[in-house]
């Protein structure tokens, strides 16, 4: 790890001001990803601005409906928050599917949004990587790519976004509140993360001097019909090969609203408007679910070691939609897949 300056931010405005004055500096909160990347010399910031003591640790109901979650709320506190468990159980479930209890006790939800990929070439500074060193190449395309993307990848990068929480936030159509030098703005979740294109070094549409201050959830929480199904190499404490978050609204056996997002398959949580539209108005059943899965995956492309994920994703989508429709969401403790 290279040497760096360390400073604590007193207020959000102070944090943003310090960042604007220090090119290449990084905000640090839980540190679970950034400190790891600094140990590996993947991140080499000249300065860390510690935001962990800012007053952004509240979960509050929004007067007009919905929930505002401060960016420094810990993953474990959010997962077990009574309002989240009751109104947004898909978010609680996705949080508990991620990392370990120790990491969830440390990691902030703002930091969870900003996790970097776990592509092994991104982590290995002895190899090229367009995300770490733009223009150097992508060894994953012709190398070890079992954990890499099957949707939305580019010639520059086939990395995936590692977060579970973000897959649920995509289904909930959360908004991300950010503060910057010219004030606050609100970013719809679908526009927060990016596909790699020819700029894979940029994971998000956040500017370098902007700070995530909160995540806002609209009132619709899909508490009756939801699931977070995560398929991985071991039962717990592993990144997703494929995960599926689902939120449905069903009346008399007919799907009125459908949201579906995939994790582990793309550079951002993957939604497909056509597939969701195809579910609306249909009877909740295997025929509609299989058609939706086909629509999500019709453009999927596998590489040497991950082609299996296309069929795995197809089956996981059908399974997850069935779980949500039946009102029997996947539990994250007993691992039996219902």
């Amino acid at each position, binding site marked *: 790890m290279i040497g760096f300056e360390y400073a604590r931010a007193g207020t959000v405005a102070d944090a943003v001001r310090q960042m604007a004055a220090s090119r290449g500096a990084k905000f640090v909160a839980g540190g679970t990803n950034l400190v*790891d990347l600094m140990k590996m010399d993947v991140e080499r910031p000249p300065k860390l601005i510690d935001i962990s003591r800012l007053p952004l640790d509240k979960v509050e109901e929004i007067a007009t409906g919905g929930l505002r979650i401060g960016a420094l709320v810990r993953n474990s506190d959010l997962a077990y928050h009574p309002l989240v468990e009751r109104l947004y159980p898909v978010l609680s479930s996705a949080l508990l599917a991620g990392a*370990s*209890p120790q*990491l969830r006790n440390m990691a902030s939800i703002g930091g969870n949004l900003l996790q970097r990929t776990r592509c092994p070439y991104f982590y290995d500074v002895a190899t090229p990587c367009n995300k770490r060193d733009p223009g150097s190449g992508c060894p994953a395309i012709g190398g070890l790519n079992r954990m890499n993307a099957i949707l939305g990848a580019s010639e520059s990068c086939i990395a995936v976004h590692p977060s579970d929480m973000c897959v649920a936030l995509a289904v909930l159509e959360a908004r991300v509140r950010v503060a910057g030098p010219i004030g606050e703005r609100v970013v719809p979740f679908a526009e927060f993360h990016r596909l790699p294109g020819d700029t894979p070094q940029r994971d998000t549409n956040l500017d370098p001097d902007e700070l995530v201050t909160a995540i806002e959830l609209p009132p619709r929480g899909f508490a009756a019909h939801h699931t977070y199904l995560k398929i991985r190499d071991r039962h717990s404490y592993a990144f997703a090969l494929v995960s599926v978050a689902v939120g449905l609204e069903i009346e008399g056996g007919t799907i009125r609203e459908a949201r579906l997002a995939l994790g582990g398959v793309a550079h951002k949580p993957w939604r497909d408007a056509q597939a969701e539209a195809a579910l609306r108005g249909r009877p909740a059943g295997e025929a509609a679910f299989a058609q939706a899965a086909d629509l999500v995956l019709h453009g999927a492309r596998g590489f040497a070691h991950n082609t299996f994920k296309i069929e795995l994703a197809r089956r996981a989508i059908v399974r997850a939609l069935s779980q949500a429709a039946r009102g029997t969401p996947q539990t994250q403790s007993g691992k039996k897949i219902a």
Partner: protein
Amino acid sequence: MEGTGSSTTGGSRAITEPVRLTVNGEARQLAVDVRRSLLDVLRDTLDLTGTKKGCDQGQCGACTVLVDGRRVLSCLILAVSQDGATVTTIEGLARDGRLHPLQQAFIDHDAFQCGYCTPGQICSAAGLIAEGRARTPDDIRELMSGNLCRCGAYTNIVAAIRQAMQPS
């Protein structure tokens, strides 16, 4: 505080900052290199070598300690960020010469072989019990999944934690 400031060695700047910690009930005033993990400060500066350095990357759980009562991974925490924190390590669990119920349960159930992961397992289990979320053996397995045991003592670890969870 003495020792605070910056110096240049080998082309990499070493910057130190003052940090106050309460470790196992004892107040400590330190000047730490901002790059040092809480794990390294516990082991190398405070000589509390019960906390183990396994992967040093947040993947094995051997470095688990309690900070302000919550289980965390000391390898991924910059010590400088913990000014004012209360830290409990495996050395701080026994009371008045009596083992912590989890320590006794691990002995009773032979819940280890080589013992390297054990301090992290026990600190993690203390956090699990304080959190109060585990009801069933499945819950214990899931909520202890951040602690790897390469000897494979998992069955006895779950049995030991179940014993310690019983109201005494």
